[in-house]
């Protein structure tokens, strides 16, 4: 029995994260930085996760980082992702030290490895959302 293909889930956006998604739509990766203690923050918060200040600003992120860990999903994914099999889910550690979940694209899924250098690319999901994803790059 074929499972009907569900539409891809879109991010359920918190109001204070809107600048992130607006930037992503323009193919820019931005993260927060605390103006009091300098800590880089991702995902967006209402206050600094280090010093608790709400004196936060948005800054461009390098978009470069390394694969902290990953998996190649080969079967039994959430139903909306069945057509994408196999695909890579990974935790990427950016040069700024923050971590984000994403997909590694533009390569053979089985060529991905822990500590692989990657850089951000943008994939349009629909008119409203563009997702930051990552592709392998030279170290």
């Amino acid at each position: 029995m074929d499972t009907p293909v569900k539409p891809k889930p879109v991010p359920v956006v918190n109001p204070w994260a809107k600048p992130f998604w607006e930037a992503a739509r323009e193919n820019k990766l931005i993260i927060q930085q605390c103006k009091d203690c300098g800590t880089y923050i991702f995902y967006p918060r209402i206050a600094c996760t280090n010093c608790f200040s709400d004196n936060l600003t948005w800054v461009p992120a390098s978009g470069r980082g390394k694969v902290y860990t990953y998996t190649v999903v080969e079967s039994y994914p959430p139903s909306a992702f069945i057509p994408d099999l196999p695909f890579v889910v990974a935790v990427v550690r950016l040069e700024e030290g923050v971590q984000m979940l994403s997909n590694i694209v533009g390569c053979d899924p089985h060529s991905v490895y822990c500590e692989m250098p990657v850089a951000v690319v943008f994939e349009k999901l629909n008119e409203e959302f563009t997702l930051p994803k990552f592709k392998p790059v030279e170290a």
Partner: protein
Amino acid sequence: MSKLKGKVAIIGIGEVPTGRFPETAAIYHAIASARLAIRDAGIQKDEIDYVMPTAALFSPQFNTELVTCRVAEELGLKNVKKNCQVFAGGSSSTCALEIAASLIHSGAANMILFVHADRLGTGVSAQGGIDLFSTAGISAEWEVPFGQHYSAIAAMSTMRYKYETGCTDEHISAVCVSNRKWAQLNPNAMFKKDLAIEEVMASKSLSTPLRVKHSNVLADGGAAFIVTSAERARAICERPVYLLGEGGVVTHFVFSQEPDVSRFGWAKAGRMAFEEAGLTPKDVDVAEIYDSYPIYQLIGFEELGFAERGQGGEMFLKGDTWPGGKIPTTTNGGMLSQGHTGAGGAVALMVETARQLMGKAGERQVQGARFAVETAVGGTYMDAQVTILGTEIP
């Protein structure tokens, strides 16, 4: 450190078989387990003054019934002062035991019934179960849109653990085999067929490096336990199971925010619990380590001090954790072999811990067990929880 060491005890346990029971109503699993626990404790049902159900995931309607006192009414409990749900996902039983202990020690409650039931095996479709566990506890903004789900999460922990330790797929698979050996001695377990490492490693690829047989299977079931003061316990129970120590570390909500996905907070949580109990891992007769996927059982086992990091797999492989082994581990078969009933995974484990210490574990009884450690964790492995229980107060 809490003031609860030796102040309260589990005096009764109840459990119905875990499996797929399409004809059985979820409430049956709850009230049958509760009734068994009350009988096991040897108390009158009306001595229960506090009912503490944890949450069911398969149906919001059924969960609301648990919240709105159905268990108390179905069992005809006449002296219940409060019915209040305690829920922390997979660590519910551990968190509830500490809350129950605090209520009893403070005098706010005398005899607490903790109960769980769920129908994740037959109350939701197979894909429905996957979809539930690709949204429950997973960030709708930062992870769901990327295809995140629980098998991928466990796979990413396994991948990093393998990278850091050099541990092999054979070591990971050995955890499944060890748990199956225990499940074969557990009448309430779902899976009892022989399981060989080769079979685990030859099963279909799930999310690399995990294969289908590295995954738990969702199931129906229920379990319950009764908590009272140590003083009262000694008066009515032959072998009360005392709470000796507890520790916990909340590390994250969003999985990708966890800085160490192959360790989490287990080491610190373990130190807290052992320090309070005044014991060390060497004193432990039974290690009831939460699984859900083999990697989490392996990490918990090592971080608590039962093996050096990266060496635990070898112990699972050569039988140290099996029936008759030097550190019997996850003796009900865990969620990998007894079955995954949602919050019930660690309820079953808590009940099994008490069962072993009470000497009621039948064929799989660890002879002379005095001290046991139990672990539990909820969400995307968000809160390492460790409890130490024993039949003596050291």
